[in-house]
């Protein structure tokens, strides 16, 4: 295997076009934030029943994908798989950019985003949110160190493994923390489950890898570099394995809930009577987001490995967004069971399935977060040496 040469990508016309489009999306997000901050959240679709909506779906997606994007680097450094070593730098950069994008969406949706400094200095350590703030900022610092250790020639390569190990363990704790945002809520039947943490970890693997595959293939194509089919096949196989893991944890979550009579309400809601949530669960999360990608990868279609990996990644991302929408919004749409055994009604919509129609401002903010993550990655690829130039078949090893 020849030595890996990392080089910046060239500033081509297509790169500039992409950059301008992303910048426009970011500007749209900025305008929407100003509008919502000035007029209050009344202009969004969120209300006192659905308090977390589309922005939070995007934010959690980006944060979960961020932790998973680091996986490729971890497989190389921690699990000593040399084939993935050239991809480590992009993996680290993507992890940081996705996290920044997700956090920005989260912070800009706050009722009082001007109080970010308060949030960063006043901590309540019984809250998993507080721990998450520390875990997220720590993650960015640790991955930055991990990248530095890999990229700075004056640093001995022996430091890569310990840095990679710290980053790997930290990201597992971080994703556990993200899942526990929901898992530690006793109030709602759709949450309050220990399985939320491992479910989110498995989701991070799948979503992070799918975003990584798409970003890798896009940047390489734009710069005219080749990726070996064997490598793409391996990435695709890994993705299918992670999707299977997500399917497993989802199945365990729902089978366990189905067994408890007290949870029959929420299960009936999600699995059969929830309207849009049921459609998203079965149609998008399970079929489009899990079964179809697995069939693509394992099914042995004659299409090229790259096409299969890319298509599977797109499907997994769509399925992941649907899964998060069902968890976050569906979990809130189902009414709180304050009075088990009673039919409840009130002026505060007790006992009713809550309505939620996302506004364009929420969509703009969420998409803006994605755009920020992508533009940061693109700039990094242009300015830093993070992308390898020789991912040919003959260089693939391990």
């Amino acid at each position: 295997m020849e030595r890996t040469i990392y080089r910046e990508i060239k500033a081509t016309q297509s790169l500039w076009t992409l950059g301008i489009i992303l910048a426009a999306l970011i500007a749209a997000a900025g305008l929407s934030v100003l509008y919502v901050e000035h007029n209050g959240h009344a202009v969004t679709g969120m209300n006192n029943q659905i308090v977390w909506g589309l922005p939070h779906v995007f934010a959690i997606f980006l944060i979960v994908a961020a932790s998973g994007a680091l996986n490729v680097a971890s497989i190389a450094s921690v699990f000593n798989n040399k084939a993935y070593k050239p991809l480590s730098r992009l993996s680290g950069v993507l992890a940081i950019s996705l996290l920044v994008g997700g956090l920005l969406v989260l912070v800009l949706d706050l009722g009082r985003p001007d109080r970010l400094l308060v949030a960063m200095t006043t901590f309540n350590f019984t809250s998993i949110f507080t721990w998450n703030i520390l875990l997220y900022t720590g993650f960015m610092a640790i991955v930055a160190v991990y990248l530095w250790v890999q990229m700075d020639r004056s640093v001995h390569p022996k430091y890569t493994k310990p840095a990679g190990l710290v980053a790997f363990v930290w990201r597992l704790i971080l994703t556990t923390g993200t899942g526990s945002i929901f898992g530690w809520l006793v109030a709602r039947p759709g949450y309050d489950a220990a399985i939320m943490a491992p479910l989110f970890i498995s989701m991070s693997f799948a979503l992070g890898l799918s975003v990584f595959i798409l970003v890798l293939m896009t940047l390489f194509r734009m710069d005219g570099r080749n990726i070996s089919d064997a490598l793409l096949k391996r990435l695709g196989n890994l993705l299918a394995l992670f999707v299977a893991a997500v399917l497993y944890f989802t199945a365990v979550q729902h089978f366990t809930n189905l067994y408890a009579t007290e949870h029959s309400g929420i299960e009936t809601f999600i699995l059969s009577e929830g309207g849009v949530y049921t459609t998203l669960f079965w149609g998008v999360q399970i079929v489009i987001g899990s079964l179809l990608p697995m069939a693509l990868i394992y099914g042995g279609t004659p299409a090229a490995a790259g096409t299969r990996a890319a298509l599977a990644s797109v499907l997994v991302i769509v399925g992941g967004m649907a899964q998060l929408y069902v968890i976050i919004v569906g979990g809130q749409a189902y009414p709180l069971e304050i009075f088990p055994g009673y039919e409840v009604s009130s002026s505060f919509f007790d006992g009713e399935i809550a309505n939620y129609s996302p506004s364009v401002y929420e969509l703009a903010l969420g998409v803006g977060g994605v755009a920020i993550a992508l533009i940061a990655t693109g700039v990094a690829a242009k300015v830093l040496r993070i992308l390898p130039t020789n991912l040919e078949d003959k260089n693939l090893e391990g």
Partner: protein
Amino acid sequence: MKLDRPENPSRRNFFKSGAAAVTLTLAPGVTVMAFGGSPAAAGQADAGKRWGLMIDVNKCASDCTACVSACKTENGWEGHGDPEQAAQWIRKVTLKDKATGHETSMPVMCQHCEEPPCVDVCPTGASFKRVDGIVLVDKHTCIGCRYCMMACPFKARSFVHEPTTNQKEHAPRGNGTVESCTLCVHRVDEGRVPACVEACDATGNGAMIFGDLNDPESDISKALAAYPTTALRADLDLNQGVRYANF
């Protein structure tokens, strides 16, 4: 920067001693004396007390919303616009037993739990429990993340969705922060009862009793000892300050 304030004997201490004397003489029997407090305790939340409510569901009239109207007037949360986004500190809930068809109604507000999930989850500590058991939102620190609203099992909290004006002096509320029933803490600290309890008494139904749960001689403690009462979602073991009787 630590503040070294010069000693100002004139204004502050003068008013402090003056105010205590004024409170006692102006409102005999209604204010501090009613809850057996001392003038010194009136200046501070008393850790020895635990404020609570007992709601007798039998006495609650199904078509009466006096408590809700009184709370709206007292605290100024009348919304306009989308009812799904309007705040509701207290609401009347109508229950129909699925098995028997029996109907009841009762007011539901912040339950002022002893182990509040909302306090646990607040990232800045804005959601807090006072030493006397009243759970409040410190809107100076609230960042409007709405996690407490996700965590509350009783849907007690509301998010303010639009800019506010003409707030009540004793009940500040602002765009982008979260709010809920304060057990009329501004009234309680003066030795009065919450607005909802006062209004319920005025209708003649008298379904709500307010008092000190730690005081065995208070009306509420005697009532709790005499009647079977329950807390909502008792399975969560939150030890709420609000109890429901005959439910």
